[in-house]
C-alpha cells in the first residue's frame, strides 16, 4: 500500500474545532456533507453556479464547493445548522431570515433554501435595509428551480424589518409551521 496522500486538516465549523482526514483538494462542501454529516449544505452543481452550497465565513457568504479543504484549514465557517442561536438544549433562536422564510411560506421543494438563507443573512449583515435592486443583484447568483423568487424577496424585506425592530436575532422555534397565516 503506497503512503497515504490524505492529510489531517483542522477547521472551525459552527464554533467547534473539527479535524478531518482528507485529500487536500476535497471541496469544503464534501467535507461538510460526507465527513461531518452536516447535510443542510447542499450539492447543486459543484461548479459554483447555483449557490446551494453557500456557507458563511466571517459573516460573508462563500460557496463551499469552490473552497478546498487545504485552503479552508484554520478558517472558521458557519453552516445552515449553525445559523440559529442555541438558547439551551432544546431551543433555538431562529435567525430572522429563517423566521421570515417560514412567515412568508417561501419553500417549495426547499432544496435551494439553505443556500438562499445563508446568502440573504450575509446580505442583511451588510445592508440592513436592502433595496429590490440589492436583493436582485446578490440573489441572482442562486438558482431556485421551483421559482420561489418573489417570496424570497418578500422574506428578505421582512427579515430586514424584524432585525431593525429587534436588533439581535429572531424568534423561538416551535414558531408555528403549518399555522394559518
Amino acid at each position, binding site marked *: 500500500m503506497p503512503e497515504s496522500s490524505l492529510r489531517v486538516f483542522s477547521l472551525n465549523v459552527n464554533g467547534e474545532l473539527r479535524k478531518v482526514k482528507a*485529500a487536500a*483538494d*476535497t*471541496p469544503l462542501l*464534501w467535507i461538510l*456533507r*460526507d*465527513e461531518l*454529516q*452536516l*447535510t*443542510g449544505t*447542499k*450539492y*447543486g*452543481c*459543484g*461548479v459554483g*453556479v*447555483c449557490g446551494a452550497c453557500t456557507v458563511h465565513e466571517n459573516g460573508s457568504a462563500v460557496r463551499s464547493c469552490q473552497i478546498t479543504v487545504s485552503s479552508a484549514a484554520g478558517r472558521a465557517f458557519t*453552516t*445552515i*445548522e449553525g*445559523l*440559529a442561536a442555541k438558547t439551551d438544549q432544546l431551543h*433555538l433562536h*431562529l435567525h430572522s431570515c429563517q423566521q421570515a*422564510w*417560514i412567515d412568508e*411560506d417561501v*419553500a*417549495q*421543494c*426547499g*432544496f435551494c*433554501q439553505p443556500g438562499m*438563507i445563508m446568502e440573504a443573512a450575509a446580505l442583511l449583515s451588510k445592508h440592513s435595509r436592502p433595496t429590490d435592486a440589492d*436583493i*436582485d*443583484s446578490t*440573489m441572482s*447568483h442562486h*438558482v*431556485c*428551480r*421551483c*421559482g*420561489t*423568487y*418573489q417570496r*424570497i*424577496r418578500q422574506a428578505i424585506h421582512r427579515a430586514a424589518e424584524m432585525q431593525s425592530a429587534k436588533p439581535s436575532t429572531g424568534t423561538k*422555534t416551535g*414558531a*408555528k*409551521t*403549518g*399555522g*394559518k*397565516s
Partner: protein
Amino acid sequence: MKVTRRTFLRESSRAAAGLVVGFQLGIPGATSALAKSTRRAAISADPESAAEFAPNAFIRIGTDNVVRLWATRSEMGEGVRTVLPMVLADELGADWEKIVIEQAAMEPRFKGIRLRTSGSGSAAGTWRPLRKAAATAREMLISAAAGKWGVSAESCRAEQGSVVHTESGRHLTFGELADAASRMPVPASPKLKDKKDFHLIGTRVKRRDGQAIVSGSAVYGQDIHVPGMLHAVVARCPYLGGKLVSFDPAPAMKVEGVKYVVPVRSGFATGVAVVAVNNWAAIKGRAALLPVWNKGPNASFDSDTFTREMENALDQPGFALRRDGDAPAVLVASKKKMEALYEYPFQAHAPLETMNCTAHVREGSCEIWVPTQAPEAAQQDAAKLLGIPEDAVKVNVTLLGGGFGRRLQTDYVPEAVEISKAVGAPVQVMWTRDDDMKYGFFHPAKLERLRAGLDEQGLPVAWHHQSSGPHLSLLGPTAEEKKNPNYFADDGMLWGSFDNPYNFAHHWADYTLVESPVPTGPWRAVMYPSTVFARESFLDEIAHAGKLDPIELRLRLLQPGDMRDLKATMINRARLIAVLKTVAEKSGWATTQGSTSDLGSTTAPHEKSGRLWGRGVACNVYDGDCYLAMVAEVSVAKNLSDYKVERVASVIDCGLALNPLGLEAQTESAIAWGMTPVIGGKINFKNAQAQEHSFADFKVPRMSEAPRVETHIIQGADAPGGFGETAVPTVAPAIANAIFAATGKRVRRLPITAEKMRLA
C-alpha cells in the same frame, strides 16, 4: 368503493394501542371488472369514480392522542404533506397540532396502493379517499363514545381531537377512545361533512415542513446516510444509444478512497461505476477513468438537423387529432389566410437536487432510499433486477429536491441496486450536475404549424394545427398502435391541440410522430407547452392582423360558453370565459391596451423609463379540469438588446382550492418554470451528446428575471383539481405576445433572444 372488514386493522403489535383506518380502493387490475370500471372512470373524467385510481390514505390514532397520517404522495414542493393533514383535520375533527405526517413507503403494508405522484394529482387524487377514511374514523370514534355514555351517535360530534356529547358537554379525547373505537363496526358509507363545516380547507395554511427546511434538517435523497455506506458516481456512455466497450479500472483505483470499479448494465446507459468511501474520491476516480465507448447507431445525431427533419415531417401524413368539418378545403377557398410555424426546443428538467439513489442489497432482500415520484416502479425495477419478489424490496421515499416529471423515471434505481449488489455494501449513487444535464428524459422538441382561414371580419373559420416531433419515448405507441390513425385522439392527445377549447366551424389537428434517439419523458405540463405556445401565439397574430383585441377575440371564439364534449375530455367554456374576463379586469388590460390602435399592427404599446412596454394574454384548459388565463407585461430595450418580464397576472379556477397559499405558490413556480424555454433554456445535441453542462449554459430564470406575480383564484366547484402544472403552458405565449405588443416583433422560435427580436 366498498369498505371491507379487511381494511380495518388493529395494530396490536405496536406499543401504543390505537385505531388504524385504511382504505382499500379499486386498484386497477385487481379484478378485470374493477379494472374496466376504473379505465372508464378515467375516460369520463368523473371526479367521483376517478378517485378509484387513488391511493389508500392511512390514519392511525394513538392512545397518546397523536393522529398519524401517511402521505401517499411524494413531497416535491407541491405541499402535499400540508394539504393532506388539512383535509384529515377537517373531516375527522382532529386537532391540527396533534397530527403527525409520515411518508408511506413501498412495503407490504402499502401493497396495492398508489404512491406515484404525477399529473398534478397530489390533492385531487387523494381528496375523496382521504375524506372517506377520515369520516370512517370519525364515525367509529363517535360510536365508541356514544356507547360509553349510552347516548345516540347523532347527539355527539367530533371536534378538536375529542368527541363531545352536545347536550351534556361530556367529552372524551380520541386517544381515550382509540381502543374502544377499534372494536366498533366499520360504517358502510360514512357521511362526508358539508363544505360549510370545514375550518381549514380553503384557508391559507403554511407548509408543515417549513421549519425543517429552513434549519437544514429536512432530509432529501442526497442526505441519506446508511451505516457502512459507500458513494458511487457512474461514467455513462456519453453517446445516445452507444455502449460501453471496455475499461481499465487501474487509474481510478489509484485514487485514494476508491474501493471498487464495476461495470453498470442497468439504468440510463451502460457505464462504469466508481465506488469510494466518499463522493470526492468517487468523482476523482471517475475523472481518471478512460472507458472505451461504442458510439452506437446515432453518432451523428444533431438537434439542428433534427429540427429540419421535423419541418419536413409536417407535410407527411400523421395521426388525426381533430376532424371537425373540412378545414383544409375551407382554407384553400378562404380569401384571407394566415400561416405560421413555431418551435419548442428540447428541455432538461434540471431539478436542483440531482438524481440520486441509495440502495442496500442483502441476501434475498433490498432496501432503497430515493427521492422519486414513482416508488412503485422503483420497487418493480429492483425486484426484477435482483430476481426477488417485490415484497422483498422496501422503498423509502425521501423529500424530493424537485421532481417536475424527471423523477417519474426510475433509471437511477436499478443503477444503485446493481452497484450495491456488486460490491456487497449499501451504496449511494450520486449524479453530478453534468450527469443530470446530459442523461435526462428530455422534454421533446416540437414544431407546430398553424393555418387559419379568416372571414371578412378577420375571425378564423377554418383552423388547422399540425404538430411534429417525438412523443414521450417510454410511452410512445407500439408498432401495432402506430397503424391506428386515431391512436392519439382516442386518448385525448395531443394535449393543447386535441382539446383546443375554441369554436371554429372547421377545425383540424394532426400530429406527425418523428422519432429521435433522445430519451424523452414527461416534463411539467407534458404536451401542453409547445402546442399552447403555438396556439395562443397564433391567435394573437390573428387578433392583431384583424385589429381585434386579443381577449375579445378569444371570448368570441368561446361562444356560446357551452360544454364541449370531446369524449376523452370535457371542456367547460363558461369557466374559461370567466377566467379570461377576470384577468382582463385584474390586470387592468383595458387601461393601456385599446382594441384597435393607430400604430397598425402593434396595439397600444407605450414608453416608460426609456423602454417599450407591452402586454400579452394567453389562456388554457388543463385536462378539462383547470382553467387559467394569464396576462404578461414586458419591457423591452428600445434597441431590442434585452427584455424583462415585469409582471404576470393570472386567474385560475381549478375547482375547490384546498389551500390558496399553496395554489399561489404553485402558480408562481409554474410561471418561473414556463419562463425557462423563453429566456434561454435549450438543450442542443451535437454528435449524439447534449452540449450543456450546468446552469451556466442551460439558462434558467433567476431572481433578476423573476417577474412580479399576481395570482387570483376563483373558488369553484366542489372538488379540487390538479394545479401543479396549470400555469406552465401559457407563460411562453403570454410573453411572446407581450413582446409583440411592445415592439411589433413576433418571435416564433423559442428561446426568445435579443437577436431573434432584431431579426423578426
